[in-house]
């Protein structure tokens, strides 16, 4: 059982880092609580795998500390850390049977054979591998192999956390949800801390209670899937989460009005004040495609936009709009009428986010 704390952790692969860009992980503080199901979400190359390898001990951080239950484990090798890791491509021991694969971590520490048998049978049962136990691991399908590599982590009684490094990459789509459900089930049954690295937001939000979104070596937001969706802390989270991502408009104030380029936006006074008070040249308003009101007829306070085209995705459609010179996407549910030619838009004030220098600033909605 462990609570994993990252204290002023940073890592670089370069011997003499000059700027923050040289760091794969920029200085961060983070806590993974015991028994939680977490996801580490981010695009390729954002440092998620590096972070995972630092936690498991395969990499030693350039600076800062990794603590397990308050103890610094920086210099402990992976074998001394009570942590299991499942890799992107299933790692199995080819020449061994499934049974021997599962027994391997236990036999390595000279567990009595009776105990080994007990554990292997238990884990095989949970993972639904009992029927395959006598088969050579080499000839299993990709998802079975991945279950075996997961099983080698579960079989150890001392494991306090399992780290997953994009474990479903090589699995067929129709089997993905099955394995994901299995993971959830295992998490509930064993109460093990699980950290799941992925670049797929759907995978992250179905697996995890809380998601850490990484961008350029930093955790830009740590929150529930709902928080990430409704109140993204950083423009990157807005882009990355949601399908399609959030609309961002560069804005300024002119003559008591909020302007996006030459287009005047109809927004409430508190939004205007917030924009006017921001001391930066990089001010953006963000609104999710789901929250833009699209009307086929003129409405009060509606901004007239041109409909470029729309994409029907079955249960909803995405409408591509031009508001002045700004491209916007809006999501329309299937029961709503899809406008053509012209549309009138409204941005509900409480759904607008203000981003100053890419980070969210709360708008006072009094």
């Amino acid at each position: 059982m462990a609570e994993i704390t990252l204290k002023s952790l940073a890592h670089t692969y370069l011997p003499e880092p000059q700027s923050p860009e040289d760091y794969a992980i920029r200085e961060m503080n983070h806590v993974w609580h015991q028994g939680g199901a977490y996801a580490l979400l981010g695009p390729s190359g954002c440092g998620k795998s590096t972070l995972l390898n630092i936690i498991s001990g395969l990499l030693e951080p350039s600076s800062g500390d990794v603590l397990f239950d308050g103890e610094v484990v920086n210099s402990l090798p992976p074998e001394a850390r009570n942590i299991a890791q499942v890799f992107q491509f299933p790692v199995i021991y080819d020449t061994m049977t499934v049974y021997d694969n599962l027994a391997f971590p236990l036999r390595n520490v000279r567990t009595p054979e009776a105990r080994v048998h007990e554990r292997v049978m238990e884990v095989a049962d949970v993972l639904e591998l009992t029927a395959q136990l006598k088969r050579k691991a080499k000839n299993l399908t990709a998802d079975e192999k991945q279950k075996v590599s997961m099983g080698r982590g579960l079989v150890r009684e001392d494991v306090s956390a399992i780290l997953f490094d994009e474990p479903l990459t090589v699995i067929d789509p129709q089997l993905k949800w099955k394995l994901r459900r299995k993971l959830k089930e295992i998490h509930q049954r064993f109460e093990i801390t699980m950290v799941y690295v992925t670049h797929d937001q759907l995978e992250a939000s179905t697996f995890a209670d809380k998601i850490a979104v990484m961008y350029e070596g930093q955790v830009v937001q740590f929150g529930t899937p709902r928080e990430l969706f409704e109140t993204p802390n950083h423009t990157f989270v807005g882009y990355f989460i949601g399908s399609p991502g959030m609309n961002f408009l560069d804005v300024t104030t002119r003559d008591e009005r909020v302007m996006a380029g030459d287009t005047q936006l109809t927004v409430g006074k508190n939004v205007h004040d917030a924009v006017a008070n921001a001391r930066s040249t990089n001010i953006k308003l963000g609104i999710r495609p789901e929250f833009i009101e699209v009307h086929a007829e003129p409405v009060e306070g509606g901004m007239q936009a041109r409909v470029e085209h729309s994409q029907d995705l079955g249960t909803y459609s995405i409408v591509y709009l031009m508001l002045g010179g700004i491209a916007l996407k809006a999501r329309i549910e299937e029961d709503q009428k899809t406008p053509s030619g012209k549309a009138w838009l409204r941005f509900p004030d409480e759904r607008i986010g203000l981003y100053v220098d890419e980070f969210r600033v709360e708008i006072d909605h009094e």
Partner: protein
Amino acid sequence: MNKVYNNRAWWLILPMLLLVAFSAVIPLMTVVNYSVQDVFDANTRFFTGTEWFKEMLNDPALQSAVLRQFAFSLTVLAIEVPLGIGIALIMPKKGWQASAVLILVTMPLLIPWNVVGSIWQIFTRGDIGLMGWGLRELGYGYNITASPVDAWATIILMDVWHWTPLIALLCYSGLRSIPDAYYQAARIDRASKWAVFRYIQLPKLTNVLVIGVLLRFMHSFMIYAEPFVLTGGGPGSSTTFLSQSLTTMAIGQQDLGPSAAFSLIYFLIILLVTWVFYTAIMNMQKDDNNKEA
């Protein structure tokens, strides 16, 4: 798709047929031709059937040469394969050291057979050879022209020196192709160094080792120039291997019929051993597949 039937397409295999005929079938058939006849001159020949084959199979000198040959091949394989794997395991994996060691290891492979024999001939001389002189100075009466044991040991040492690099290079490339995740998973599973070797490295080396063992078996079974230069087959006939026996018979004594029969037997032995070895390995892997089917 419409299938077009046109038997003229058979002509397309003609070039290949000719190529195979000239490269393999015709040369081989001349040997077969000699092996079943007794040829005196261009106009006089007698059909002998299997007579030469029987004679060759019953020749005690050749029988012992075959046994000697097997003993030699198995000995060098038993030394070179484990040694080659060992060298591959300790070779540096990156940086300039990797390139430097790679070149050093490859060096013996680039030396022609005759030259290897000559190098060792001089190396082992008692008067001017470093090894021969050194061993004598140490008090050991080393002499490859008098002692069969010394001659054997030297030839094996020479072959190990010349050909272990081949196994090492093959294994090195095999080891390089193992993804890091395997080693990382093994660390997390707390596998010992031995377990990593036994369950990750060795299984991943199976394919290159099959090639390595086959090549080394065929090569060593055909060894000629090195022992010929080094010991000339002696002392006595203690280091006379099959190729040398054959050459003596065919070139030295001009016994074309028996040599042809002997060549075919020689060829069939190599073919048989490699086939058995290859089939055995492939069957080992196939059995695994069947088990779970």
